[in-house]
């Protein structure tokens, strides 16, 4: 990319810690949107609450910064009300896999045309360092004083078990490759999960930049249309593969299956009430003369 990125926003003061992995995600997302040739007025970012969820305040686009855990239903409805918009739901791992877990399950089943970006720092950042659903066993925090006892949630296998139409993992420390993955996810027609491994330099002293570098590698020669292979690779835990695990083309999207956009793609806000049709419907309740 050359020149000014249209998604750049002058921000007085970014609320993230210096060195945080969120900066990489922000940079990658802006670059992806720009490289896809989108304009800020075409893009809506929907987030929850947390450090990751502050991202929409740091780039130029429409945004809905809602409640902790609730980005996906909001994003699903926005897309369905106006499919011309490019809608990105993004937030933290606690937000999306913890509080928002039920929406995660059912958004995948619905398959709205969204990019779903999760900043996976394996910790609750904003509330100062409690375990998140992806924290490793044994991870000690001020709340989990004896260490995490629960099995960590693997978002990729989970999504694949629900037949998600696009599943990928990226690493915030590698902006160029993350840009490539994000672009595919945003372009993908349907629900697209991108779980981004993101070091939290303040509260996660285990899963650091160095740890992620050591523990990750990129998928190569992997067939993204093979769900079984995808599940197998996503189950790996010795080292964590990065890249696109699965991508299904041609699946019906939520907004597509509503049938509302078959004849024309006018967004709902431009569609007036059909008073004649309503009147006719009411007539069916009148006593036959």
């Amino acid at each position: 990319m050359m020149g000014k990125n249209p998604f750049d926003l002058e921000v007085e003061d970014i609320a993230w810690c210096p060195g945080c992995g969120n900066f990489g995600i922000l940079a990658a997302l802006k670059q992806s949107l720009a490289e896809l040739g989108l304009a800020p007025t075409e893009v809506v970012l929907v987030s929850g609450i947390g450090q990751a969820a502050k991202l929409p305040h740091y780039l130029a686009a429409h945004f809905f910064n809602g409640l902790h855990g609730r980005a996906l239903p909001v994003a699903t409805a926005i897309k369905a009300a106006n499919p011309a918009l490019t809608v990105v739901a993004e937030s933290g791992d606690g937000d999306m896999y913890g509080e928002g877990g039920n929406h995660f399950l059912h958004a995948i089943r619905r398959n709205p045309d969204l990019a779903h970006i999760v900043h996976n720092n394996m910790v609750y950042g904003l509330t100062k360092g409690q375990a998140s659903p992806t924290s490793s066993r044994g991870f000690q925090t001020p709340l989990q004083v004896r260490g995490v006892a629960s099995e960590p949630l693997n978002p990729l296998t989970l999504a694949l078990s629900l037949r998600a139409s696009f599943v990928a993992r990226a690493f915030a420390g590698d902006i160029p490759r993350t840009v490539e993955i994000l672009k595919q996810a945003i372009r993908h027609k349907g629900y697209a999960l991108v779980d981004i491994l993101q070091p939290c330099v303040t509260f996660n002293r285990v899963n650091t930049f160095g740890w992620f570098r050591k523990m990750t590698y990129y998928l190569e020669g992997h067939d993204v249309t093979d769900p079984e292979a995808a599940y197998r690779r996503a189950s790996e835990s010795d080292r964590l593969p990065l890249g696109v695990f699965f991508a299904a083309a041609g699946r019906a999207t939520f907004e597509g299956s509503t049938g509302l956009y078959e004849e024309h793609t006018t967004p709902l806000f431009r569609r007036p009430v059909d008073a004649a049709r309503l009147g006719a419907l009411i007539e069916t309740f009148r006593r036959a003369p």
Partner: protein
Amino acid sequence: MSGGSNFERGEWNLLLAGEAGQGLQVVEALLSEAFRQEGYCVFSGQEFMSRIRGGSNSTLLRIGSGPVRAWSDRTDLAIVFDGKALSRLEKRLQAETLILGDGLQKAGRGRILDVPLRRLAQEAGGALFVNSVGAGILWGIFGGRPEVLDNAVRASFSGKEAALVEKNLAAAGSGLEAGRKLKDSGRVSLALAGPAAVGEGLHLSGTEAIALGAMAGGCNFVFSYPMSPATGIVTFLARHGHDSGILVEQAEDEIGAANMVLGAWYAGARGMAATSGGGFALMSETISLSAMTETPMVVVLAQRPGPATGLPTRTEQGDLQLALGAGHGEFPRVLLAPGNPEQGFALARESFDLADSCQVPVILLADQYLLDSHFDLIAPLRTEAPPQAAIVETTAGYRRYLLTPSGISPRGVPGWGEGLIGVDSDEHDESGHITEDLELRIKMVDKRLRKFGSLAEKAIPAEWLGPEGASHLAVCWGSTLEIVREALACLGRQDLAALHFSQVFPLPEASRQQLERAKCPILVEGNATGQFGVLLTQHWGVRWRHRLLKYNGLPFSVEEVASGLRRILQGEGA
């Protein structure tokens, strides 16, 4: 409901009783259709158990020469499809009630008359057809024209396979004959004065009225998680809405539904969720989000008895306090509570305009009684002049939370104009970005609260029923409107009037004087603690002389309200 024969009263109260799955609703629909064809006014209401088969349910069917639009405990004639029902209905049977059934055991009030329900059903093809037989018998007793009944059967089973329709026709026909015989024998006589067709000729349940009102209000997005008694609104819109471009989606839970509603409004659509108390409680946090982001929101809160799961298929006005307190923090909201289908339609429609123009959450309080009852309409429904959405085309530099004197900022939507639409759950600046500027915090709180001003201007005054300047005033809200109206008519007193609120929050200041002028305010409410009474005390300092409360899961009946008020007036020496 005053004394005299039903002929003199010009009305006839039928009670249909049986198990879930025995098709009481078919009898209800079939006879409603038939009597309406003949020009009579029909009201029907249901009380039923939370189960799919068995148990013991009943339906009230009131047939009137003039308007009948309220729940009544008087029964002229009961038809009992299942013997178990009888003891449960005891309170609704009078000495003069005729009880039709098949081998019923006498137990308490009323006169039993054997009718061969089961035999006729078997002859028509099986136990399944007992409902059509029953409808036929009643129609026969009434002395209605056979072709009207046939038409009604055909209408009720339209779309079903021909053989089934034929069997039902046969069943109804044999019932009709049995009914005629009964009538001719002189053992039953339930003639009615001739019909005086009233009003609109429209016949709607509360559910249908609210769903149609939502359509008139421009609703094009419905998110819900099924919950009685709200589900009917959603299924109505699913069935009838698609052609009108309405999207109906079942959410994974109520929190998802509520957040989808906000997403829809943010993008310029008009979303609605419908739920009951428990589901609404789950939406509580999202109500607060609606207020903070100033994103409009419409929710139907279909009340049923609580706490928790309570009595899921019954009625109560028990969730007002919940609706008033739902959501953390401080913000304006609107609570509307229709009293009949006309208001159901008008207020559902109005909800969308209020939410849109003031950018606040609007909650429509209905209840099982209103939703599941069918009324003949008296006033017309306003369908002309579709609403004009209060959204603007934005220009670059647009600020979603521009500080304005009214507190309302022009609302843009993504995809229309050059501006960026940013909304935020945190305290924010005019552009929607997070702020910790504590001076700005005060400005934003004040901005949001200033909307109370616009809401006050738009507040819907309470409706005065009965004689002007009466000293005794029954005060009610929501679904009790027609019950209280009829009770007043029965009592026919000059010292008693009623005031009905269809907007319960913010209270319509215009009605305050009317209430303050009353010497003896009497609260009539379908709950155990008098929640609306508390609200009126809080805001207007009303001191209640009497409270008429009901909370067993059934609606008030006209008779209960009338006798309750009579007792109070007597006690007052009035």
